[in-house]
């Protein structure tokens, strides 16, 4: 029998034997094999962030939980993606996210098309058992076409990353820290006044919630178009070759 190349690793995910390239993450391999691991800050085409902690998985012999989005596969790894403990942790993390902002799905432009809302349903979060924090957060509607409602921002930094890595403008960044952290444009100056923003709308489309949205859209009217992201990444890779 032919020895497998050292670039190919074999491992088990939820009892299923899978093969993977050595530079792949657990998340990528799981997806290729139709195994679902919940994610929120992660989006294909952007660098990983590792902040939402929803993709944490158990690996046999490792006493810490590992984020599937950044953990690379290893030979003989035994991964468990959906233990009762992980389900419980994920639900609590979702509850923490919901408690942190002011997420009122009923009056949100992406109601029905929101990644956060979909996860709550999928992971069986029926209510939020931690107290709501009800922060008082500001809205920036100074841009002609788009608006930012920080009440719905979950600090996944997809907007920051897409603006930096794909558009190259780095108009967005995170300001402050801890529960006070929030996204800003430029020097915390109005988005509409920004000289660096190209109004390309990439941030709006990658935003998982209704925090960034197109103006003129009413409740449940906005859907996010994300096809551009894998396309642009692919085209750029081609050009640089």
């Amino acid at each position, binding site marked *: 029998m032919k020895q497998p190349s050292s670039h190919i690793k074999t491992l088990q995910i939820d009892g299923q034997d899978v093969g993977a390239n050595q530079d792949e993450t657990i998340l990528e391999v799981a997806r290729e094999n139709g195994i679902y691991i919940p994610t929120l800050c992660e989006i294909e085409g952007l660098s990983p962030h590792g902040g939402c*902690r929803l993709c944490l998985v158990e690996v046999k012999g490792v006493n810490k939980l590992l984020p599937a989005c950044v953990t*690379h596969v290893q030979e003989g790894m035994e991964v468990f993606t959906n233990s009762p403990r992980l389900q419980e942790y994920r639900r609590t993390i979702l509850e923490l996210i919901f408690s942190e902002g002011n997420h009122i799905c009923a009056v949100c432009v992406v109601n029905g098309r929101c990644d956060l809302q979909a996860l709550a349903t999928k992971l069986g979060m029926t209510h939020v058992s931690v*107290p709501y924090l009800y922060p008082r957060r500001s809205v920036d509607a100074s841009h002609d076409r788009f608006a930012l409602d920080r009440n719905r921002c979950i600090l996944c930094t997809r907007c920051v990353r897409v603006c930096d890595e794909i558009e190259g403008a780095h108009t967005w960044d995170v300001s402050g820290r801890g*529960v006070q952290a929030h996204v800003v444009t430029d020097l915390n100056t109005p988005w509409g006044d920004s000289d660096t923003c190209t109004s390309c709308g990439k941030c709006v489309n990658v935003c998982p919630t209704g925090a960034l949205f197109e103006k003129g859209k009413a409740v449940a009217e906005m859907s996010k178009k994300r096809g551009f992201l894998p396309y642009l990444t692919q085209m750029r890779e081609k050009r640089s070759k």
Partner: protein
Amino acid sequence: MMIEELHKIAAVERDEDNRFQHHIHVCMETACIASRSDHVKQALTEAAAGKPCRVKGVGCMGLCSAGPLVKVEPEGVLYQGVTPEDATEIVAKLGDSPVSRLECDTETPFFKRQTKIVLENSGLIDPERIENYIAADGYLALHTALNTMTPAEVIAQIAKSGLRGRGGAGFSTGLKWTTVAKSQGERKFVICNADEGDPGAFMDRSVLEGDPHAVLEGMAIAAYAVGASQGYVYVRAEYPLAVERLKLAIRQAKKLGLLGENICGTTFSFNVDIRLGAGAFVCGEETALIASIEGKRGQPRPRPPFPAEYGLWGYPTLINNVETYANVAPIIRKGADWFSAIGTEKSKGTKVFALTGQVVNTGLIEVPMGITLREIVFDIGGGIPEGRKFKAVQTGGPGGGCIPDEYLDMPVDYESLLKIGSFMGSGGMIVMDETSNMVEIAQYFMEFSKTESCGKCVPCRVGTAQMYELLDKVVKCEATMDDLLLLERLCDVVKNTSLCGLGQGAPNPVLSTLRYFRHEYLARIQEGNRETAFVSH
């Protein structure tokens, strides 16, 4: 710099010292300067003018609460609470019977029970003079390593000594060095973590202020061992004196060819730069510290890859803390066997602690690993003031725990502390007596973690805020048993799902106080229930 030159500098310095019959050492560290030891030194210098007596500023002598401290050698008389007005009298009584009203008894356990490696020079040498350090065998280890040992032999010595990281987690230093040495990279870096952020901890500040060259020498040896040519000391901006002394030390070492190009006549080159922190506790976490040196927000990133393989600007990077580096030169100089004879089976050597809180002797101590908490608190620390009762001792900072009296006889080492829900941490040791309320202490630490959370990962960012609110309810007697259950659930989630050590450790003060002082939580909850019951009927 050749070995002969090194010996010559040492000889000249010793000769200079020998010209004086008496030496007066004045502590010139932040805490003593705050009690105006700078004025004391000035007055002593004036009083000693023209006499066979030399006045010199030195590092910490340990008993910070009794400052300003002044020591007279060779008699070994220690004076406490000295004022500038005492200067003439102290000088006049040299060689005579000491000034008894100022005298501090050095025969007490506080002085007798300590074992000094890291602090061997502290209080003896002038930190602002490299010659003084050299006269105390300084830079001999670097010379030995560079000229008589291969990098692999240096690492082998460190590994054999059993030295473990003094920053808190206790990772094997030898193993860390090996990983960096093995990692491929066109450049490598050595970083000294001096972002001592634990409240109630000042070991690293004292070492940097009292013996900066010991740290630089340790870094240089480490750089030689792992193959790095550039080092950074990441130090808190809140420590201006430490920064100043470090800057001076780097300049002096460069001038003598002990840092810079072709050190000690070899091909080895190593430069050190200082990077200032800017008030972010999370930057003590190594990946956050690296981000900060790179000029970014100090947010940690998931590990692996570990900095040893992928660190500063993507290059293999060795990060150790101040105290770890300060152990290196003595180990090379005196041998791994000497070092590993001190301490316990798994925790070798000594540990420096900042002993503070409700204890008679507060200050800086260095003790062998394996000493009991009782010895530290009651013998060295002199017990609890005003006859009050001991309640707990907190170690490990905001990620550590409160240890009750039932564990006072437990040996202090990495494993034992972990077993009882605390943590070695960097060395803060805060004693609490019966007047301390443990729920409030837990809330105090949670406030710390909440404010210092970088905000990157959800469990730490939101979880610490939620736990703080729940603790606040308990403190105000407004919490229910359901709140307590929720608090415990959040502790579990935050501990196990947070990205870095800050979040993973944040629940520990709550968990340890719940474990040992649960009745204090319950009392406040019952108190609250009684009040509501009263209102509703």
